[in-house]
């Protein structure tokens, strides 16, 4: 490797907030050979995104390169003028962003957006540009590229949009592709798709990838080299195998250990079902047309399943599989068109009794929007207690203190506002709010997918501990199979509104029956911990 002249060499890069602020990136060094895949791994705030943005010269205003060199194809990018840098961007260095939903302009057609780069950086005529765009779309697996060129971004799913984004970046055949968490917002299946496509396209063009991610397991599968970042410093770097086999730094080990392992080996507790869902069908009303509504979309199609008291049933599936809708129908946020839902023997769809609502709580995915920004933490936690009869002010305050302690937050948080808390802390508050009334059932809708890896692990651990302590049953909705494997007693797999497989965690993970389950598992987390403390790729999932 050393004989090849590096494509990109970052040496002693320091990025500072304003002129006298703290260092966001602190003396970072790494090399990239042409065609090489290098992963920058770290949690939010580790400086990985800032480092990548410095490479493409798009640091957000208060940030600036304080010192160091970024040599790309022989020239120092830090010394280039604005115009020179613009010529490099897009044509030599491409970038794919995290959020496919917002990284395409909703008012321009796909064709217009794809052509933009070629028009700017090449002298090709319109005809060639069109031909190239069509060819690229065909290559990324779009069936009808002609139609796609005239379509608008909202007509595509997140995974599709990310493919299109990738296609329009690769159209210019850059030497270096910066991928900033390109798949974090996607579900497991779409994630595998997009990454495969990215690898395929770059291999053909010989493009190097600077892959930024917080997900170590995702990265090690494909990267040649890994740089682990923490608080702006490179904690550890080296060839992927070396890091997996013998992580030197304590922090790297923590990141690796944060990968969940299988939990409950005991089978599910046998009990009378707490929740009995029978043939539930839920339809979303169709789009309002000019005169009539469109055909309703069936989100959940004749699903039946039971949840026993005290057990954790995981509901997995891709986005749009209806798992969230089903969960919401159990708490009464959605009304099914057909079917019955029994809670503790009462049909909650027919009975006017609101008792089950008190016994049924929900934890939402996004800890930012699930807490009222104008309420203090103590108010948020105390709110469910309004519906507990005969509880004095002092009693409420006591319960709030207890639950704060139980979710592992210090009492000083009681008087804070949500924006003063980190994502993990907010999710702890959300869990506390769900549990303060000691419900029999908790519906957790992707409770950890918005969090960093090590925080995910903490929240999962907390969840398990609280389940033992409070004894609630849980419907755990997730697309993250690793987390599911750790926490669930039983697993139910949904695909396009149908329940395709249900069984104990061991059954589903070790001996999947349905083809869709196979695909899900193949796309999931591939790292296995060995007895000597090193890690290797799970053989079945290795590419």
């Amino acid at each position, binding site marked *: 490797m050393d004989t090849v002249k590096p494509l990109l060499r970052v040496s002693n890069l320091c990025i500072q907030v304003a002129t006298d602020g703290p260092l966001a990136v602190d003396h970072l060094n790494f090399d990239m050979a042409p065609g090489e895949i290098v992963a920058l791994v770290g949690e939010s*705030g580790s400086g990985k995104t800032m480092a990548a943005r410095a490479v493409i010269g798009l640091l957000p205003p208060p940030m600036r390169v304080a010192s160091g060199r970024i040599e790309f194809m022989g020239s120092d990018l830090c010394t280039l003028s604005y115009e020179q840098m613009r010529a490099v961007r897009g044509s030599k260095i491409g970038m794919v962003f995290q959020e496919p939903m917002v990284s395409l302009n909703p008012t321009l057609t796909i064709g217009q957006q794809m052509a933009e780069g070629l028009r700017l950086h090449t002298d090709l005529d319109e005809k060639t540009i069109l031909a190239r765009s069509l060819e690229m779309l065909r290559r990324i697996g779009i069936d009808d590229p002609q139609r796609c060129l005239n379509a608008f971004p909202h007509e595509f799913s997140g995974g599709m949009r990310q493919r299109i984004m990738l296609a329009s970046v690769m159209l210019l055949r850059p030497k270096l592709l910066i991928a900033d968490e390109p798949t974090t917002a996607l579900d497991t299946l779409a994630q595998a798709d997009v990454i495969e496509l990215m690898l395929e396209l770059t291999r053909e063009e010989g493009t190097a990838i600077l892959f930024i991610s917080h997900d170590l397991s995702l990265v090690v599968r494909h990267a040649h080299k890994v740089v682990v970042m923490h608080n702006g410093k490179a904690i550890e770097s080296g060839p992927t195998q070396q890091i997996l086999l013998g992580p030197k730094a304590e922090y790297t080990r923590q990141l690796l250990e944060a990968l969940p392992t299988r939990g409950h080996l005991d089978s599910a507790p046998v009990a009378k079902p707490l929740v009995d869902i029978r043939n539930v069908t839920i339809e979303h009303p169709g789009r309002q047309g000019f005169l009539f509504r469109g055909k309703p979309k069936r989100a959940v199609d004749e699903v039946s399943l039971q949840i026993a008291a005290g057990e954790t049933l995981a509901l997995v599936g891709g986005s749009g599989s209806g798992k969230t809708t089903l969960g919401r129908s159990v708490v009464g946020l959605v009304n099914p068109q057909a079917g019955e839902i029994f809670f503790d023997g009462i049909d909650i769809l027919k009975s006017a009794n609101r008792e089950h609502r008190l016994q049924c709580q929900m934890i939402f995915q996004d800890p930012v929007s699930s807490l009222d*920004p104008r309420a203090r933490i103590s108010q948020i936690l105390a709110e*469910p207690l309004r519906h507990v009869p005969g509880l004095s002010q002092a009693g409420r305050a006591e319960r709030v203190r207890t639950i704060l302690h139980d979710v592992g937050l210090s009492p000083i948080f009681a008087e804070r506002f949500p924006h003063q808390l980190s994502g993990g802390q907010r999710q702890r508050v*959300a869990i506390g709010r769900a549990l303060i009334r000691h419900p029999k059932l908790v519906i957790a809708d992707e409770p950890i997918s918005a969090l960093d890896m090590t925080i995910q692990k903490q929240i999962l651990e907390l969840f398990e501990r609280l389940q033992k302590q409070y004894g609630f049953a849980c419907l755990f909705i997730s697309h993250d199979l690793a987390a599911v494997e750790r926490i669930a007693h039983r697993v139910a797999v949904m695909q396009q509104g149908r329940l395709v497989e249900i069984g104990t965690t061991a059954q589903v993970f070790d001996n999947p029956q349905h083809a869709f389950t196979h695909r899900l598992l193949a796309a999931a987390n591939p790292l296995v911990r060995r007895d000597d403390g090193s890690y290797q790729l799970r053989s079945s999932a290795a590419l």
Partner: protein
Amino acid sequence: MKTLSEMAAAPTVEAKAPTQKRPLPFNALIGGSLLIVLVVLVVLAVAGIVWTPYDPLRLDLANRFLAPSWSHILGTDEFGRDVFSRIIIGARTSLWISLLTVLLAISIGTLFGLLAGYLRGWTDRLLMMVNDALLAFPGMLLALGLLAIVGASQYGIVLALGLAYIPTVVRVVRSTVLSLREREFIEASRVIGNSELYTMWRHIAPNCVAPLIVLATSMFGWAILSESALSFLGLGVPPPAATWGNMLASSRPHLVTAPWLGFFPGLMISIALIGINLFGDALRDRLDPRMSR
């Protein structure tokens, strides 16, 4: 592990950014000095009830159009009335009318906006149909029509202008509510078992405060100006009572010969508007937990 979670607290950078961009001391300085301006205005208005240098209504035809001097510091008008005394008296009328107008528009508008945005469906359609019909008239025209019905008086103006401003408030509140009701904390409130009314009152309404304050402060300005416009058209507070608006209006024929007649009421209107607007900004930041510590 504890340290890890604390390090992960970094993502809140995004949430904290606004505080860094707006240094608080500076803000507090502006807010504070404008609060003082407002207090002075209010004191002026209240003081006018007990004391003015001259009787603001007494005619003194011998001393018409006196330029500002030591005896009449802001001069006298076409009937020889002391401009300073009239400005003091006018402060009370103008500010009082504007305040009542804004309160009326905000309270009724917020109520309908909340209902329309939160209940959706037919309630929303019906309310918005009426609302958009009202919005289709220029506010001034609407106020003129209403004044013609209720008659020109202080409270007639309040009623007319208040009603004319309601549709704007409804629009603003409704759109805020529409985006709020999709947030997960609203669903969380329902899952807890809170009634819709409670959710609306406890979680939706407080989060509408920021845009409402901005709107209210700018409406305060519109109200002062509209009142002058109505006075100008002869439908304002009837003479001889003084408001900044009708002083400005009656100064028009004498603008060349006695410019101070128009200058000082105009200056007062400007000061009051700037003061109220910046005070509103400061108030909004103060009430937002994300801005204050």
